[in-house]
């Protein structure tokens, strides 16, 4: 059998990157202050939320080597759980957000238990099948979800008991999103830097060898799958609050494809790469779509080149290679 290289390895986070993070967050926090209109604020919200979604997918791809073609399912479960609880039951923001994360996590647990023994193409196809089941259910159950017409969700205030925040303005919601995404990001990087994260790396590099030194491969994959699903759920819950609207196409396989695109553009195996990938995706979409309606074409070409020549190591590696 010819030698098959494995997917690119996850990159270690260095101290320098810590300062970089502070700089990026500070810059992001300045966006509403320097932005001439809410257009750029909304663009920034889109980037951080889609970035979190893509980063959650990289927990799976970069740290277990499993490629999901159905990651939209968990994002969409967050979207519709939070959206429905607010629109139908009038829940306030915090419980609706928590419920969105919880439903996505439980779904990931139940699905994960049965599918983590698969890998490669089979894993990609089974996640695709699951997400299309969720998509079809949401799309067809129009009495509950509004089906093709979508679901309008007005943003409730954030009531934490001791303080009540209105958050109707674009900038106000942006800061909430930024804080929550930062918390999630730090939690994920702690998780991946922990001994469990190291074990995940071992599983990705060589599952058989990891098994033989006593690492429970299936359990670790399941853990990564649940963490990825829950984080995607958080991103989806925030996204529906941001957009004020839920539509079934957020769960379609093409959405799963788009988040894969962001993740791969940013580079397999990092947490910050996907944010860069999401930024490239959102900016290209916004910039190119003012010139041409065919903005997916250059994006597709960039993606193909990234996979064909960088083998999924992403734009960051490309920048590093060019600097050298």
């Amino acid at each position, binding site marked *: *059998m*010819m*030698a*098959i*290289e*494995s*997917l690119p390895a996850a990159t270690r986070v260095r101290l320098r990157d810590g300062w970089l993070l502070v700089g990026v967050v500070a810059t992001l926090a300045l966006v509403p202050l320097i932005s001439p209109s809410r257009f750029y604020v909304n663009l920034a919200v889109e980037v951080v939320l889609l970035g979190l979604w893509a980063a959650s997918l990289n927990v799976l791809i970069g740290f277990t080597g499993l*490629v999901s*073609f159905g990651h939209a399912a968990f994002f969409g479960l967050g979207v519709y759980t939070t959206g429905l609880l607010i629109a139908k039951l009038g829940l306030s923001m915090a419980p609706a957000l928590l419920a969105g994360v919880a439903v996505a996590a439980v779904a990931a647990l139940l699905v994960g238990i*049965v*599918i983590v*023994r*698969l*890998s*490669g*193409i*089979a*894993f*990609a*196809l*089974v996640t*695709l*099948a*699951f997400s*299309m*089941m969720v998509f*079809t*259910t949401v799309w*067809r*159950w129009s009495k509950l979800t509004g089906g093709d017409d979508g679901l309008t969700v007005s943003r409730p205030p954030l009531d934490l008991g001791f303080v009540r925040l209105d958050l109707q303005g674009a900038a106000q919601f942006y800061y909430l999103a930024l804080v929550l995404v930062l918390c999630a990001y730090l939690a994920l990087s702690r998780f991946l830097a922990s001994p469990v994260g190291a074990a995940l790396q071992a599983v990705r590099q060589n599952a058989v060898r990891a098994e033989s030194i006593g690492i429970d491969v299936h359990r670790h994959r399941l853990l990564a799958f649940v963490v990825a699903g829950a984080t995607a759920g958080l991103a989806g819950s925030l996204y529906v609050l941001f957009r004020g609207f839920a539509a079934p196409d957020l769960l379609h*396989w*093409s959405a799963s*494809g788009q988040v*894969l*695109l962001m993740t*791969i553009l940013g580079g397999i195996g990092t947490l910050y790469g996907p944010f860069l990938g999401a930024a490239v995706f959102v900016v290209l979409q916004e910039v190119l779509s003012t010139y041409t*309606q*065919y903005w*997916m*074409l250059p*994006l*597709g*070409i960039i*993606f*193909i080149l990234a*996979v*064909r020549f960088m*083998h*999924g190591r992403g734009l960051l590696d490309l920048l590093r290679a060019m600097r050298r």
Partner: protein
Amino acid sequence: MIPGDVTFWAVQILNGLVMSVLLMLITLGLTIIFGILLVVNFAHGSLYMWGAYVGMGVLSLTGQFWLALLVAPLVIAIVGIGIERTLIQPMRSQPVILTLLLTFGLTLVLDETARILWGSNPYSINAPDWLSGTIRIGSVVYPIYRIFVIGLGIAVALLLFLFLEKTDLGTVIRAASSDRETLEVMGVNTSRLFMLVFALGSALTALSGLVAAPMLTIYPAMGHNIIIDAFVVLVLGGLGSLRGTIVASFLVGQVQTLGAVVMPEFALVVVFAMMGLVLLVRPRGLLNLGRLDDGH
């Protein structure tokens, strides 16, 4: 309310057969490519759509439907060769999952290119005169074109089997699907073989897209749903098995068509549940013929 008369159900079953044949043609292409190259080609649905557009072009130039049936698969086979040489072949030492991602990127490019060339508005083409009209079988009145599609699909499947079983090249292809290394040792140029197989698979999906066109409409996203259905068939058939694929396409075609009548809300959910279940409990497919036995 479900009508109970025999005529109604006979028509539904015939519709199911038409759907099955379209699925069979597109998935036979996917299967033969997976069986030999171990690559799942996500862009297969885009080639299906391209086949319909190219066929439409030939039809509007010459007015000859049979010519379109020959030229469209040929053109898409050449496109397939280009794809295989530039994108698939160089990725052979990489994980196959990267090739799946690559072909996903290719769908974006092919779909957008189609929008640029032909616009987003749907086109429809008519069945040729010699295939239009209806035929009466007992109490059932059915379009002749659809009967033609069923016949064509079965004929193509038979030809494919004859080709694989009776010709030298077919024998080499079958050998490649079971032991590639030995074949290379024996001096067979597997690289060229892979190219031919990819071209053959592309031609089959283009044919499916073109024969579907007079019954459906032609638009840039016309492959988006059927590629997922084809994945379902691919999995149920056991990835890489031609016989399994044929059986699975007739099953899925009927379940979808009859299911849409009996329980329109959830027929699709059932289909995807079947796919998930088979991957989990019978990864080598319903007939246990497939190649996906080690999870890769």
